[in-house]
C-alpha cells in the first residue's frame, strides 16, 4: 500500500496516434504560395478534433528537405510580421524538425510564410495525437 506521503511524478512523454484514425493520425495540408515572388500568406488550422491533445507539426517542401524553408508562428492572436529582422515577430519553424505542441496552441496559432526567403512551395503537415 502506498505511503500517503509518496509523490508520483508522471510525465506524458510519448503521445500516441489518435485511436480510430487511419494512417497513424489525421493529416491535412495547407499550401503556401511559393513560386515567383510570393506574398505573405497567413494560415490556421481550423479543423483539429476536440479530442486531440497534441499535434505534431512538420514542414515539408520541394526543396528535398535541405532545411532552407521556414515559417513563422504566433500564438497570441497577432499576425506574424515577416518584414525586416528588426521588426520580425513570430517563432521560426524550419524543416528537419518535428514540433510537438499542445493542440490548443495549434488551434490558436497563425502560420506565415517568409516571402523574402521562400524559394519553394511549403506544406505544413499536422498529425493529431493523444496522450
Amino acid at each position: 500500500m502506498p505511503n500517503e506521503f509518496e509523490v508520483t511524478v508522471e510525465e506524458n512523454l510519448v503521445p500516441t496516434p489518435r485511436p480510430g484514425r487511419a494512417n497513424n493520425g489525421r493529416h491535412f495540408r495547407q499550401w503556401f504560395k511559393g513560386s515567383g515572388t510570393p506574398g505573405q500568406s497567413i494560415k490556421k488550422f481550423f479543423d483539429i478534433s476536440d479530442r486531440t491533445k497534441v499535434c505534431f507539426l512538420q514542414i515539408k517542401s520541394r526543396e528535398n528537405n535541405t532545411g532552407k524553408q521556414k515559417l513563422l508562428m504566433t500564438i497570441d492572436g497577432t499576425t506574424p510580421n515577416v518584414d525586416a529582422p528588426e521588426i520580425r515577430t513570430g517563432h521560426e519553424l524550419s524543416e528537419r524538425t518535428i514540433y510537438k505542441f499542445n493542440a490548443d496552441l495549434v488551434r490558436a496559432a497563425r502560420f506565415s510564410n517568409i516571402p523574402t526567403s521562400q524559394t519553394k512551395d511549403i506544406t505544413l503537415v499536422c498529425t493529431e495525437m493523444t496522450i
Partner: protein
Amino acid sequence: MNTYVVNRYNKPTPGAVAQSMQMTTSDNAVKTFGAYKENTKVIFLSVSGAAVGMTIDGTAPGDTSSHRLFSGNNYYFAKNLMQNAKFKRISTGTATVNLYASEMTN
C-alpha cells in the same frame, strides 16, 4: 498519495502578448524581457538571425561567460528563469539577433 503531473505540452496563456527583442550588429547592450502574466508557467523562446548569450545569475553575459542560444533554435524555459535572464549579442555575430518569447501555461 500525492500525484504531480508534469504537463509537457503547455498552451498559450490567455491574454498574454508575446514579447520580442532585437539586437543589431552595433547593439552591445544587455537586455531583459518585460513582466509576464501571473499564471504563465513556461516561456517559449525562439532565436533567429544570430546567436545570443544568456545568463541567469545576475551577471552580464559575455561571449565566453554565458549560455549561447543559437539562431534557428526554440527553447522552453521556466518563467522564473526568464525573469532573471539577461541577454547580449555575441560580439562576432554578423546579423541582427531576433528573440521572440511567447507565454504558456498548463
